[in-house]
């Protein structure tokens, strides 16, 4: 190191020192978060990684015998009746359903969340805090009881159907509960603040004089929105869509209560392995696979977005 330092010109040596200092500062600043996560999340997850390579215990837990069985079982299914090996179609359809519903949830929360965040960010400073609280207050009540309340609103004899019949829109109640639509509604409801708040944090900073400039250049509203607003608030969009998409992949309560539980999502399936199914290694392997897929997708997503921004 010292040898390298003497060989480099003075200025770049100074720069290198500043650079090292900067890197050290960044690591120091990140340290509390890293420690917290090591103790409270990522560290213990190593246990799960190890479990995915072990044999299941008889009634939950694991037996300390290494095997790749769990990873094999994710992708292939041995028919319980004729013992032929198939692709694990059940796992695929569960995975696909989860991805599809999570993507739709993200789109819906964005479609509703963006105007809402924009609306809040364009209020007066005093009003903003109040509107922000109005967005989060429903979430102070418990998730389960909230989900049950949604159920009450959309069930066959619930408010929506009763009103629709009263005003003559329909004759017989529409079955909304226990459909994928109900799951979507419930998930969009649950994850809405996760979209609105990051968007708000981004939009609030927005310099609205830029819009004026846009209009002065005879851009119409759509052009102004697309060319000026969207690119500048893209960090908020990235944050919001990650916060909605990723957790909704593992959603558990909503699909079970509002979807009627007839079709599983990944969250329910993994829960089954750690619960009644008592196959911890399979549950562990499934969650590790999910972790890897999401991490890779996240990296590509963030790269793509930041790449686009630096070009634009």
């Amino acid at each position, binding site marked *: 190191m010292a040898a390298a330092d003497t060989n480099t010109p003075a200025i770049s040596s100074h720069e290198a020192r500043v650079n090292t200092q900067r890197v050290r500062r960044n690591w120091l600043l990140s340290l509390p978060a890293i420690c917290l996560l090591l103790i409270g999340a990522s*560290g213990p997850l190593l246990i799960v990684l190890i479990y995915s390579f072990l044999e299941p215990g008889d009634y939950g837990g694991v037996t300390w015998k290494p095997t790749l069985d769990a990873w094999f079982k994710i992708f292939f299914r041995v028919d319980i009746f004729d013992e032929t090996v198939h692709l694990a179609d059940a796992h695929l359809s569960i995975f696909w359903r989860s991805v599809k519903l999570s993507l739709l949830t993200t789109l819906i929360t964005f479609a509703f969340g963006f105007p809402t965040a924009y609306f809040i960010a364009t209020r007066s400073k005093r*009003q903003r805090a109040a509107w922000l609280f109005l967005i989060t207050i429903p979430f102070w009540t418990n998730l*389960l009881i909230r989900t049950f*309340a949604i159920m009450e609103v959309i069930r066959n004899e619930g408010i929506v159907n009763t009103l629709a019949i009263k005003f003559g829109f329909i004759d017989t109640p529409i079955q909304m509960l226990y459909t994928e639509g109900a799951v979507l509604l419930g998930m969009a409801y649950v994850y809405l603040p996760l979209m609105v708040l990051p968007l708000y944090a981004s939009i609030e900073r927005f310099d609205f004089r830029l819009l004026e400039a846009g209009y002065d250049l005879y851009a119409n509203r759509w052009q102004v929105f697309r060319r000026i607003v969207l690119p500048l608030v893209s960090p908020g969009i990235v*944050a919001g869509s990650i916060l909605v998409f990723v957790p909704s992949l593992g959603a558990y309560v909503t699909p079970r209560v509002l979807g009627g539980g007839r079709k599983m999502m990944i969250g329910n399936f993994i829960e089954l392995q750690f619960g009644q199914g008592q196959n911890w290694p399979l549950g562990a392997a499934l969650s590790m696979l999910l972790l890897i897929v999401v991490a890779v997708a996240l990296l590509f997503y963030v790269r793509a977005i930041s790449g686009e921004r630096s070009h634009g």
Partner: protein
Amino acid sequence: MAEANRAAKKGKTFSVKTMPGFTTVAMICFIVLYAPIVTLVIYSFNAGNSIAFWEGFSIRWYFIALENTVVQEAALRSLIIATAAAAIASTVATMAAIATTRTRPFRGRTAIYLMINQPLMVPEIVTAVALLIFFASIKVATGYTGLGYLIIAHAAFCVPFAYLPIRARLESMDSTLEAAAADLYATPWQAFRRITLPLLAPGIIAGAMLAFVISLDDVIITEFVKSAGQDTLPTYMLGQLRRAITPEVNAISTALLVLTLVLLSVFFVLTRDRRANPD
């Protein structure tokens, strides 16, 4: 500027900020958000035992909730954990966000980013089982079984929820002001205190609010990490799910909502004068 003319004809002044339809969508959002909450409040006055079968008006569930110390303690415990977890998570997330945003790439930045977001990437049950096994061995070794475990677990889980809004805010901020401060010989700490922090505040508030809400809602991690006598409101509810949920919890939720609204109104009235000039 046809639209401006149209707006002017309607007697409104053209505002560059307004986007057509946005206010309507926002209002729809608020209505949809509050419809279930209204139902929830209504059923807290149900005379019957059900949260979905109306049998007449009564305030008996409020009396039952008032007498039920278990559910009150659970609610209080939820609030304590959520407050502590949100405070810890938003503090460490702010520091981490400053370290990883608007800085030249450095070795490990991606790793830090992925690690911070890791709690999002696995379903809660997995983190829950992992934490159970890890914390149980610490509990056995140290004999300490207090709320600390739950606070740490919640805080860690909440970090990405606090981090991402703060990061988004930072990315949307330009660094000229901080650079100017540095040019004026402000120490890094002064520059942070006086310039960065106030500018960053909306992001931190958004992050802390998210963390708070996420912690309040958490069921599965709490269910697995809690020790004896540490039920929170969500785990208390989860236990009831299999049998039947009574309007008692509606009554508690309603009481909490009212309390929140009262506190907020007081806060707004008290701060009115100092912040009189809007924007």
